[in-house]
């Protein structure tokens, strides 16, 4: 089940993992804009782990023998901050350090309750809706290519 679908089913009450997944799919501009708003409401965060670009080794459990193998590495960026005494963590694909730092700020803000206006929840809803919309558009393009060949 796609991330957007799960968020929809959870009826707005996101777990921390669901929120992180949706923030990881948000654009850098969305994250940075909202993080700036959150930061304006209180003291600056302490950067615990500076944004770092690296690899996540992707292991696959193949379905025939059910054995794992490493298909390769995926580029990712992570960061960690402390805001109001609460740790915020972020990891997203790509090498956008500013986006990863902003995402960590938002994770900490959501956990510490600094996001009183509910901007983070609304961003997550917007991202989930966008993912559902993109998937629907994608399916509208793909569906006409379903084929049933006739046997001779």
């Amino acid at each position, binding site marked *: 089940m796609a991330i957007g679908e799960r968020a929809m089913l959870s009826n707005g009450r996101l777990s*921390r*993992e669901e929120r992180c997944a949706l923030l990881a799919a948000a654009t850098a501009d969305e994250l940075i804009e909202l993080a700036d708003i959150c930061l304006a409401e209180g003291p600056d965060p302490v950067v615990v782990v500076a944004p770092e670009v690296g690899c996540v080794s*992707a*292991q696959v459990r193949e379905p025939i023998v059910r054995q794992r193998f490493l*298909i*390769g590495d995926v*580029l990712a960026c992570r960061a960690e901050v402390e805001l109001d005494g609460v740790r915020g963590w972020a990891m997203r694909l*790509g090498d956008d350090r500013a986006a990863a730092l902003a995402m960590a700020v938002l994770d900490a803000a959501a956990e510490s309750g600094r996001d009183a206006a509910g901007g983070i929840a609304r961003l997550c809803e917007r991202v989930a809706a966008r993912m559902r919309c993109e998937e629907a558009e994608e399916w509208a393009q793909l569906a006409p290519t379903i084929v049933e060949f006739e046997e001779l």
Partner: protein
Amino acid sequence: MGYSGVRGGMSAILAAEGLVRRARDHAATPWASTEQILLRFRLAVDRIMGEAGLYDEAIAADAFRQAEGDVLEAAHLVRAHRSTLPRLAVSEPVEPAEMVVLRRIVSAHRTPGGPQLLGRTTDYTGRLLERPDGPPPAADDAGAQVPPERTCEQRHPGRFSDLLRELDLLVEHRHGTAADPEPVDVAREPARPPAPRSAVLASMARAETGALVGLWYRSILGPDGAVHEVTLGELRHGRLPLRVIHPHTGNPVVVGVFRATEAEAIEDLDGADEDRTRFDIGYGMCFGHNERKAIAMANLDIAHRRFGDEGSLEQLLLLTTDGLDSGGFLEHLKLPHYVTFRSMMDRKLAGREARGTDDPNPRLPEPFGKEC
């Protein structure tokens, strides 16, 4: 010039590189942006990601531009870049059943369970060279039609091999969680025969596509005496979620999605010590959309399982299909080998001098290191 017995030539080397940079970066034509490459050369980008072993479309596109379209050189650039990066995490095991399919065909069966979804392909139409001056007229927008109702089965279709398993037509290899060895990381430890299956699969996932297809073709033609009758089962291209463990909650969290191509090759078992009433299946998966590679990988996986212990297949798979290994060794031949070759010439001339003596077939000393 650390390799060869020469030095100097720096100004000529820099001038040669300057020719490349000027012609490539300042050609009298609009700059090929990363986005342009991503959208118009997606298969080359995907191939680079797979052969480099690093999934990042923008980096692969930039490498494609820097390498002037040389896919192997681009994969080399990306793999070298990857070697400078820290490892942030190892993902939770990706379950292929979670793939959101963009294309899915099963050529072995008309109704395999779930749709036969052709997706974005020209496989079933004639392809002739087109040379338009600009973008040709837009094709009919298939998306304008009302799509059939979307179901979970359509985006996550069942697996044809599961159907064969239900019919008890498949050799069972699953032995529970007890047999779940840690996967070998071929990026850190080169795999050498005999190697666990995870090393073989990982090596094939980042092998050079042409080398893998060539080795597969050799395996089905049978010069090694192992003839295969293989049918393609699943062939899929789609998106998969990548999860890592959240450091504060200890639960898996999706950090993004990547695209992959997956194939299953069904083999008709016919060996004397094999169960001829059942089929066996080989598996292939690689980054991006690269069907030739995934199909070759699946076929070679089953060939390796059946005949890997007998002949040279495992050695060929592990030692000859990496594009950076083979291409790098070939490329090094272009570096100056003056000293090496001069010593060979000297030996020839010395032999000729020796032949001038009474002995019509003088025995020459072996080169250093080759004496028995």
